[in-house]
């Protein structure tokens, strides 16, 4: 309930700012560290940005980090891998989910419920519970170290199908009937009505699935072995090594910053759709 006065609620404001500090502090020093020299980092002078940033970023992006223990491939390549992976997963999930939800909601056919439950069951089968056999299937199909292997197995999504299904159930019957009287068949109705009406849902899912794809960890760890296929998230953890004084922290933090940037920008730019979508999906 709002306070009776227009005076700002000082306690609430203080707590919110503490929360923001806890969220923002790690991000801030990630940024500052990426602009400092390893010596400055080692001395703990982390609170303000330094002058090393341009050099660090251009080096890691184009040549890769040359740390004392290993040489990583250029980060630009890793970002490209992550971008392709995130986009294919996000768009692929949306495409196949909207089609299957359309089939389940707008048609009646033998086996409909069996198919629905088959899709639904995938909710209970994350990669983590079928590590070895999934790896073997991908290996048998010759998809190790390929974008196909990295993306296709992840684009089946019960979550997205359920969201579309839920939305489709709210499309008024009369709209379907009006379109039928106007002469629209099922695919025409899909293109002219369902797809444009699903715009907000598609946008929300895109944000969530882009983040999901960009942030994948266990899957690329299983499916890729060659450094040229490293995503940026995997690449960073390879750079850290032991995580001690020998780690080239300025390069690692610059890479980390680059790894955070795209998903964070997507959230910032599409925050409205994202917030609504996230809460809707779990309903």
């Amino acid at each position: 309930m709002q306070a009776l006065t227009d005076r700002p609620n000082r306690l609430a404001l203080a707590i919110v700012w503490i929360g923001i500090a806890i969220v923002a502090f790690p991000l801030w020093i990630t940024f500052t560290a990426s602009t400092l020299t390893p010596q400055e980092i080692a001395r703990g002078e982390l609170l303000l940005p330094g002058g090393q940033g341009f050099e660090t970023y251009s080096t890691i992006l184009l040549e890769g980090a040359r740390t004392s223990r290993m040489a990583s491939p250029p980060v630009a390549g890793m970002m490209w891998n992550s971008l392709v992976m995130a986009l294919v997963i996000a768009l692929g999930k949306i495409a196949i989910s909207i089609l299957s939800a359309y089939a389940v909601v707008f048609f009646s056919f033998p086996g409909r419920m069996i198919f629905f439950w088959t899709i639904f069951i995938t909710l209970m089968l994350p990669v983590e519970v079928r590590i070895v056999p999934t790896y073997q299937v991908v290996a048998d199909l010759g998809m190790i170290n390929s974008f196909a292997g990295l993306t296709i197995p992840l684009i089946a999504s019960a979550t997205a199908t359920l969201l579309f299904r839920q939305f489709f159930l709210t499309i008024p019957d009369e709209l379907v009937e009006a379109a039928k009287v106007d002469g629209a068949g099922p695919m025409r109705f899909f293109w002219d009505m369902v797809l444009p009406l699903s715009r907000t849902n598609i946008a929300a899912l895109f944000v969530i699935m882009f983040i999901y794809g960009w942030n994948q960890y266990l899957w690329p760890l299983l499916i890729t072995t060659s450094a040229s296929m490293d995503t940026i998230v995997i690449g960073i953890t390879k750079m850290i090594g032991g995580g001690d004084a020998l780690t080239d922290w300025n390069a690692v933090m610059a890479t980390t910053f680059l790894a955070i940037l795209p998903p964070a920008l997507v959230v910032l730019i599409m925050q409205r759709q994202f917030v609504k979508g996230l809460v809707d999906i779990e309903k």
Partner: protein
Amino acid sequence: MRRKVIFEHKLLPYLLLAPQLAITLVFFIWPSVQAMWMSLLREDMFGLSSTFVGLENYVRVLSDPGYVAAVRRTVVFSVAVALLALLPALLLAVMVDKLTRRVATYRVILVLPYAIAPAIAGVLWLFMFNPSVGIVAAGIRGLGFAWNPKLDGQDAMILVILASAWKQISYNFLFFLAGLQAIPKSLLEAAAIDGAGEWRRFRTIVLPLLSPVTFFLVTVNVVYAFFDTFGVIHAVTQGGPAKATEVLVYKAWYDGIIATDFGISSAQSVILMAVVIALTAIQFRFIDRKVTY
């Protein structure tokens, strides 16, 4: 669950379903069935032949002290992550809900960690708590405490818990805030007229009305702590030092992929599958409750 008004077409629905079904069958259902089958087999030393051993792998897994320790560790880890991710999120949501200005700005900043991969969150916290260069680690030592997550198992556990919880606060915050905003203001106004103070209103009206959201978030957070934190642990501690942060998912991955003991890893996978199914079932009972709420 189906619409009243539908299209009639014999072939089309199957074509629409085909891509998703194909992927689901090949990469989800088949491997899961395989996991169940492999959990009943044992491979010879060279991986050339395998024999059916019944439930022997399960017996081996469950009687392995290392596995039992991992179970205990996972419980501690999950409970700690869930609590540390839920309570601050609730506090922040309640406070943001009280504010009238710049709410959207605060919200978007607080939501940012959602965009960050668990492994990256791990790297951020590793950097801050790193014994040699970490700025927070230096502070802790300055206060006179020993701190070295590289060597001390407990320190390592604290580090992965903090990193995991930090990332998840965003998600919980969003749901709590949505839950709070869904509470009709008239209810709180009525309670205020009835003489309930702020704390009493929170306890007797807000908390009960938030209970469906809370319950949902508890299960989501446990699932998160069980499975999605693999990246945090792999990036920060590799399950160490001395297996001090080896949780169940990490162990299933390690035993299967690194130690290539497929039978044992598959048995662990099937056990984890049972856990997910149980948690999903609980979550769906919650959804049923919400419908009638």
